[in-house]
């Protein structure tokens, strides 16, 4: 923060420089913006801020801007904005006030600027007064070895054995449900039946009993049922797609199937 201090220092240097009407060598880095510069310039008028000459202030600021290095100012557009505004204010102040429809008269604008400068100046004085107060750990000190109130927190956790077991049992119950496995049943799938039927139907010369296509006979009963059902469904599927014909001569009688290879 030492550079801040030199900034503060430079403020006074500028003051004296302006006062002696010497050539201005200003560095905008030394300021915190146009208002800061304006305040520094206003103070050089060595009068109460209420009586500063706005016109003189404008001149000083425009000179400051003109003298400051161009590239530096380009980085700080607000200086140029302020310069433009002040130039406008200056022209308004110098020209006789027209019966203008402008919002504010030049005097009002000047008064506003004066107010802003006064306010900034006042808050700076206040901040200096605030910082010069006795500050804790700088000027006044609290007990160096505080004896803190030792709050012994006897955390009493409420939990009964019942609750513990209840939760465990609930967890187990939930888990048991999640653990139920539906065993994969042995089935002869439709896909298997279709494949078998397609493969074998070509081998058969003519109408063949569907049950001739049953795979090997050493099967569990429920598997046999599954195979029959799937073969039957597969035969219907083949008939539907025109790959086979099926015939049943009587109710519950044998189903005959043959390949449709005729070119209709």
């Amino acid at each position, binding site marked *: *923060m030492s550079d801040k201090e030199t900034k503060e220092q430079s403020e006074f240097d500028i003051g004296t420089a302006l006062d002696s009407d010497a050539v201005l060598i200003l560095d905008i880095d030394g300021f*915190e913006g146009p208002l*800061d510069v304006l305040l520094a310039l206003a103070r050089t008028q060595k009068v109460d801020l209420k009586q500063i000459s706005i016109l003189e202030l404008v001149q000083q600021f425009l000179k400051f801007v003109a003298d400051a290095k161009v590239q530096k100012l380009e980085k700080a557009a607000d200086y140029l904005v302020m310069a433009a505004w002040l130039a406008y204010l200056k022209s308004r102040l110098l020209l006789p006030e027209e019966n203008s429809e402008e919002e504010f008269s030049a005097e009002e604008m000047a008064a*506003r600027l004066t107010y802003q400068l006064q306010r900034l100046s006042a808050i700076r004085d206040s901040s200096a007064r605030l910082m010069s107060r*006795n500050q804790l750990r700088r000027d*006044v*000190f*609290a007990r160096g070895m505080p004896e803190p109130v030792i709050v012994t927190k006897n955390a009493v956790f409420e939990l009964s054995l019942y609750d513990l077991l209840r939760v465990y049992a609930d967890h187990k119950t939930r888990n048991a449900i999640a653990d139920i496995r539906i065993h994969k049943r042995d089935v002869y799938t439709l896909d298997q039946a279709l494949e078998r039927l397609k493969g074998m139907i070509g081998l058969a010369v003519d109408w063949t009993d569907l049950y001739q296509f049953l795979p090997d006979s050493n099967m569990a009963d429920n598997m046999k049922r599954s195979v029959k059902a799937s073969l039957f469904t597969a035969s219907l599927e083949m008939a539907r797609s025109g790959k086979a014909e099926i015939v049943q001569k009587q109710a519950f009688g044998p189903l005959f199937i043959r390949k449709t290879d005729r070119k209709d």
Partner: protein
Amino acid sequence: METIEHTRIIEALLFASDKPLSSIALADCLPEEVKIESLLRNLQEHYEKRGVNLVEIAGKWMFQTAPDLAFLLRKEVEEDKRLSRAAVETLAIISYHQPVTRAEIEEIRGVSLSKGILDVLMEAVWVRPMGRRRTPGRPMTYGTTENFLVHFGLNSIKDLPGLSELKAAGFLANVNTSRLNLLGDDKPIEEQPELPGSAGE
């Protein structure tokens, strides 16, 4: 006899703490009928001329070394942590104008507020957000903390140095953030602070 005992208790509690204690907190350790305020005043008187003083800060009570002995105790370490001028000014604006928005701080200082400044002030726990203003954009407002009062030895915000002068001069009137605009605007309505526990207002 009882009074002596109660005073000893208050003395012990305040001496043991490095933070200010409210009379309510002290009351917790004392019988109900005890008139704490009067005991505190007596204690304050007893310590008035000693090396350690009992001070009323942020509406609470605390023992502190006597300010006139600062020259003996002043620690240079704190100097390293000095705030930048911008930060000090910002802190002053926040303390005198609170609740105040970022735009208003910028308007008063005439420059935009660089990012680090509010951070530093909040890190020091001197500044806190105080809720949003009921104006377009609902900007966040800032104010000071109890820690700020304690650090600067203030009993309340009303004790800020020069507050009445600033007020009388009209410098604490509403900050008009539409630049260089002379129209006085209506006092904006603040929403309730979003954080509980307000510094003395």
